[in-house]
């Protein structure tokens, strides 16, 4: 590696870079590893702002961030189509799982298909906690309900927490309820929870992360060089290795799977 020596770090013309990302990425601890590496390598000073997915996208849309790391493919598409994002790179994925009380009163364990699992949840009347915050997770959940044909909103068994994943998991645990979560956050919180993974491992439940650079044509103040440097860093072979190994020591399994060499289509996204 040619430029790991900090004294030799290059100094970019505009070193300040604002990265808007979602709380779940920050809460997993991955960024605590990656950001220092990036700063050391490139000389940029990153201001990582962890907010809700919606807010992160909005920050991109209004030019208040230079680069985004998000996981809401549908909304990302809109952002790109409206010209607010310039480039979009596939970085990594993990997956969503359905968690709930270990005795699984709704009986979703062993169902073959996620839509069936959701149908069972709806018909069982067991409490389900939705994040209801327009986050990537929330959007995934909503899209699944659409596929079931059930409109859960306003139902007595359907609670909207309006909070981040960690808090929502705690809420679900306290209420002995089901919820949809990304695997990383669940693993990080597992010790405090009385919840088990009851449904997992289908392609429909992939949680895909992209890096998006904000379009400097729309917002001239945006640090596009920095954004590209970050995108390149995230998709570089070295970084991809780091991502693939993150979490192995603590959980015995990786929290994210590197995807820079793949395309959206490979992951079943259209």
């Amino acid at each position, binding site marked *: 590696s040619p430029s790991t020596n900090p004294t030799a770090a290059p100094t970019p013309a505009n070193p300040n870079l604002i990265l808007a990302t979602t709380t779940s990425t920050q809460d997993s601890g991955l960024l605590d590893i990656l950001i220092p590496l990036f700063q050391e390598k490139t000389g940029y000073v990153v201001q990582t702002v962890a*907010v809700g997915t919606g807010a992160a996208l909005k920050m991109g849309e209004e030019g208040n961030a230079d680069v985004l790391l998000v996981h809401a493919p549908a909304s990302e598409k809109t952002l790109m189509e409206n010209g607010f994002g310039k480039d979009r790179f596939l970085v990594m994925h993990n997956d969503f799982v359905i968690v709930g009380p270990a005795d699984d009163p709704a009986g979703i364990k062993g169902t073959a298909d996620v839509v069936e699992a959701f149908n069972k949840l709806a018909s069982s009347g067991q409490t389900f906690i939705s994040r209801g*915050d327009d986050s990537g997770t929330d959007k995934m959940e909503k899209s699944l309900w659409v596929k079931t044909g059930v409109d859960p909103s306003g139902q007595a068994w359907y609670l909207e927490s309006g909070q981040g994943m960690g808090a929502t998991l705690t809420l679900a645990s306290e209420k002995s309820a089901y919820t949809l979560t990304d695997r990383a956050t669940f693993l990080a919180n597992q010790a405090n929870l009385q919840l088990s993974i009851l449904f997992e491992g289908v392609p429909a439940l992939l949680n895909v992360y992209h890096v998006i650079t904000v379009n400097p044509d729309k917002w001239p103040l945006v640090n596009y060089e920095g954004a590209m440097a970050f995108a390149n860093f995230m998709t570089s072979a070295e970084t991809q290795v780091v991502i693939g190994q993150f979490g192995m020591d603590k959980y015995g399994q990786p929290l994210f799977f590197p995807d820079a060499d793949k395309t959206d289509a490979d992951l079943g996204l259209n």
Partner: protein
Amino acid sequence: MDLIKTIFSDPEVWQITILSLKLSGLGTLISLLIGLPLGTLLALGKFPGRSFFMSIVNAGMGLPPVVVGLMIALLLWRSGPLGSLRLIYTPSAIVIAQTVISAPVVTGLTAAALQQLNPRLRMQLMGLGANTIQVVGWLWWEARLSLLAALMAGFGSVISEVGASMMVGGNIRYQTRVLTTAIVLETGKGQFDFAIALSVWLLLLTFIINMTLTWIQQRGVRS
């Protein structure tokens, strides 16, 4: 403009508003019921450790809502000692947390206000045959300007607080979502316009309430 219309025609906004006012009102009331007597005791009583206790109360004015939220959640979670009460994620839990936050404010400011009074006034009242309650009643009256300020500060700390309500209330839609937690949610969603509209609405409510209290307060100014 459109947004304002949207807000007021949205029944959910009204439900959240009413819940916010109910919970904050209750929290302030309980803080008052605790803080007024306790502050009075600290100001007028003579007992060992008074000054130390006063420090605790004053330090309590800086209780971070998130810390309060976390502590109370630890108590109320199923795994906690009071888990069997099943209070977590209920409006009651919010009221408890808000009381913990604002009671020290009311207590500390009450104590300071009463200590500021001329100590001979208390003698004069006792000399007129007032019993303890009557003495305290009149001293409250004499310190009413500062006590109303204490009330406003207490109410302010409760209506504006979000960390604790979020944590122990859970921000559950239709159940424990209040104005501040709704604002946080909308902000997180990137719905800045809606968040601002809710903020303005919350500020307006606070302003109306504190304007009423200020009006009461300022009628009592000595000139």
